[in-house]
């Protein structure tokens, strides 16, 4: 089992509330979304493992048991071309849960079709493999969901 920790503070939402069909239909995998607080925040690694991908607006960490965890900072934020994001980790890095990954200020992010909701997804896992937290608000490091396997 992999315990996935909250990468930043926020309100917990089901993936179905993410305004993007790829995430809301769990096309890339099951998970949970966070509606982040507007203040500047350093988004941390949700699991201990290896950084597989890092873009300004999204990153993937492969946990020690092989499950890839995707953290996608906002929806359609790829259009910002990195503006407003400070990347603090590199592809290939070995990271520990909580290590700084990306710094941003959700309250400063805006634009047509852009949302700051953060899907946190267990990539390519079965839909029923994720057990979400009961909490409605989380702080960094709090359990967000468990992935079976």
């Amino acid at each position, binding site marked *: 089992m992999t315990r996935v920790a909250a990468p930043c503070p926020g309100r917990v939402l089901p993936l179905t509330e993410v305004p993007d*069909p*790829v995430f809301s*239909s769990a*096309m*890339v995998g099951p998970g949970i979304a966070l509606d982040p607080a507007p203040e500047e925040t350093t988004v941390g690694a949700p699991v201990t493992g290896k950084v*597989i*991908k890092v*873009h300004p*607006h*999204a*990153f*993937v960490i492969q946990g020690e048991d092989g499950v*890839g965890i*995707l953290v*996608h900072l906002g929806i359609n934020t*790829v259009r910002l071309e990195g503006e407003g994001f400070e990347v603090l980790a590199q592809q290939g890095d070995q990271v520990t849960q909580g290590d700084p990954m990306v710094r941003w200020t959700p309250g400063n992010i805006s634009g047509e079709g852009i949302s700051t909701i953060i899907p946190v997804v267990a*990539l*390519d896992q079965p839909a029923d493999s994720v057990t979400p937290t009961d909490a409605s608000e989380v702080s960094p490091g709090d359990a967000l969901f468990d992935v079976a396997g």
Partner: protein
Amino acid sequence: MADRAEQILAGLGGSDNIIEIEPCITRLRTEVEDASQVNEAALKAAGAHGVMISGNVVQVVVGPEADTIAEDIEDLR
């Protein structure tokens, strides 16, 4: 991996049909000349989790190896 890029390129209607291809972390965002040449079944057979077509923009959901696939497709074009 290159085979997969070839299959996806074919599913998108071939090199001539592609105006622009841009990888996002989970998907390829492609602008095509003619969306009717896009073969959704072929894209899914090539391993796409999903295909979303809106006007002449085709999003192919391929997972986190999207940028590698996009590079392979550019090499083929």
